[in-house]
């Protein structure tokens, strides 16, 4: 009421100039609020990324002079057997852990969000617990778990499965570790997504006679597409940068994992270790392109699902 009265008393021109001033100050405030991020993004991400792009066209040890080599670092990387083996391994780790982990995490979130489930306060932190263990520590624990002669798993099963010796098994050991670590995190994300669904919509579907399965397929999943898209894209980006788990699980004498099971980031890491910053930068940019491509594909797939 008082606002309306004051609006009447202020001439029209003054009002618009006040609005403009407020709009301007709001804009400045907004810029000030986002500026720390923008600054950090420019200094810590965009700047180094552009610098890395430049370096990728040079032969450079990280210090001293730089020698122009054109696209040779890209050519050498694409010719490098370990790059392709690493990329194949990384994509395997991503797909092999991503699908069962997401299904499992979503299933758990559905169960825990059910109103009839007791002890929710117990289940939520328990499921999230593996996330609190650092990736190095969990990989070390799993290396004992998967030991050949004296590993926990082989002792329980009474077997001698060479989990960490035979690459065909080793890959699965990494996948199991990734699922174990990741489920709790995505469970929480899905639970948050599920709780944001308006209960009235669910109730309406029940009134309309939808059984649990139909509710899941026709109501819950469509309403969760943005959460699912976020989960799949973020997990894919993280998975393509995978480094710690396979290397700690299978490293020998403080080194890196054997190349047959190594992720692609190892190529970048060993290039840097060998003072080949030009090639390391080229690997980084190639990896960025792969990540961008996979993310774009996921966006397209989810957009098509939404349209349907």
């Amino acid at each position, binding site marked *: 009421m008082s606002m309306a009265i004051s609006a009447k008393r202020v001439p029209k021109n003054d009002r618009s100039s006040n609005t403009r001033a407020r709009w301007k100050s709001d804009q400045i405030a907004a810029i000030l609020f986002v500026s720390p991020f923008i600054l950090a993004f420019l200094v810590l991400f965009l700047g180094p990324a552009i610098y890395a792009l430049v370096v990728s066209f040079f032969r450079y040890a990280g210090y001293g002079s730089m*020698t122009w080599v054109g696209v040779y670092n890209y050519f050498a990387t694409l010719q490098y057997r370990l790059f392709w083996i690493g990329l194949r391994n990384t994509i395997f780790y991503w797909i092999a852990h991503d699908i069962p982990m997401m299904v499992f995490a979503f299933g758990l979130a559905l169960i825990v969000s059910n109103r009839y489930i007791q002890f929710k306060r117990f289940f939520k932190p328990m499921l999230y617990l593996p996330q609190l263990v650092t990736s190095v520590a969990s990989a070390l624990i799993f290396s004992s778990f998967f030991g050949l002669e004296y590993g926990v798993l082989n002792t329980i099963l009474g077997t001698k499965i060479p989990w960490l010796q035979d690459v065909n098994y080793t890959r699965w050991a990494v996948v199991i570790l990734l699922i174990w670590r990741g489920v709790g995190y995505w469970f929480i994300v899905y639970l948050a997504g599920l709780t944001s669904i308006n209960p009235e919509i669910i109730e309406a579907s029940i009134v309309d006679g939808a059984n649990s399965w139909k509710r899941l397929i026709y109501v819950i999943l469509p309403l969760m597409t943005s959460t699912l898209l976020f989960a799949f894209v973020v997990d894919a980006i993280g998975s393509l940068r995978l480094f710690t788990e396979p290397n700690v699980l299978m490293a020998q004498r403080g080194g890196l994992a054997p190349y047959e099971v190594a992720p692609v980031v190892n190529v970048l890491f060993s290039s840097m270790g060998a003072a080949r910053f030009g090639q390391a930068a080229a690997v980084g940019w190639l990896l960025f392109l792969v990540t961008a491509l996979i993310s774009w594909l996921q966006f397209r797939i989810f957009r098509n699902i939404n349209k349907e």
Partner: protein
Amino acid sequence: MTGPVKITFMSWGGVERFQKWIDAWNGTWPDAAKKIVPEAVTGGSGSSDMFTMLRTAMAAGGENIPDFYESNATDIPEFAERGLMLPIDDYLTPYTDDLIPAAKKVASYNGHFYGVPMQVKSKVWWYRKDMFEKAGIVPDQVKTLDDLINAGKALKGAYPDAFLFNLAPKSSGGWLSMLLSYYDDLKFAERGGTWNVTTDERFAQMFDIVKKIYKADIASPVGDWSSDWSPAMTDSKIASIIGPSGASWMAEFLPQFDTVHAGLWGAALWPEFSREGSEAGGSIWAITKYSKNPGAAFEYLKNFHLTKEGALTLYKLIGFLPMIKSAQEIVKAEAAKNERPEGTTEEQWKLAPVNYFGLDYLDVLFQAQDHVKIFQYDMAFNNEINILGQYCNEYVEDKMTLLEALRSAEDEMKTQIVDPYKLG
């Protein structure tokens, strides 16, 4: 009036690793400690982290580069060529008559001394005396590769569940790196970019040796440093350590891995077919060109590594063998005293190398130093050995012929490394 000079040194691992060195410095040379104050700086969890840190510091102008740092022999070429290391001929030459030959080799590159020798990593075959005796294996009589394979079979005869040593699948690189140093003047490539992998038949010989070892079925598939390694030792499934961990420094680690068989492990020289050589040469303390106090840094290092007092201190502290000839007898005499240090429990004392391996292990270690040869490392050694190991694995698993494996390795080196005497 000038105060004490502060010197900084860098190595990998936690700084607490070197706190006992600093304590020993203060305790053994109190007068010098008033003038020179050392400070340890960690370079990360491994040597690779430290070198990345040093490269970054060089790119930033060298402000944060320490006065000296620990360097493996494998890393000397890059940093000597690129000007991080200070040639210390003037400092070290007065002491060279007393230096053991292996120490001189490890500190030398291109005719100059680039550091104070810290440790020589000679080849040593660690074995279970009781198991070898029961199997009728006398290490000194194992001379050829066939002898080694026969010893493996003899051990299997006596202990059907055990292996002569361990060698994880696809681990050819470790053995190759030990074998490389056996040969004189072997190089991956010549300056100018001519590669030798397919033309020097010694590379083919090494591939054959590794393949023969794998195919002989005398090695457990347990990997060095894996979670299975220690239990396999305590369970007597592995009777000896030979290969990439068959080195002098294992004296420090073996008692931690197998606490059950103290007194039953012994040391021998490697079989003659690969007795000469070393595990990555050894390590040095390299004084940097950025050091503001190279004289003080050398003074500190000299006391530890080039005096009898220092050699004895390091032996007592961490079991390091002296780098100078004149201290060898003192160290042997100290070991022969077999006196349990104060504050050491009976259990800990059993694991001290002199008790764990028996006093004669020191003689073997000193002998092994006489057989040390150092491979001619270039700036791309780590890449080269990785590539060589990969293709040797392919040959071992019959996925490639010998020629294919060597040719693929050389092609990959040409594409990926281009010239190992140029960096970047």
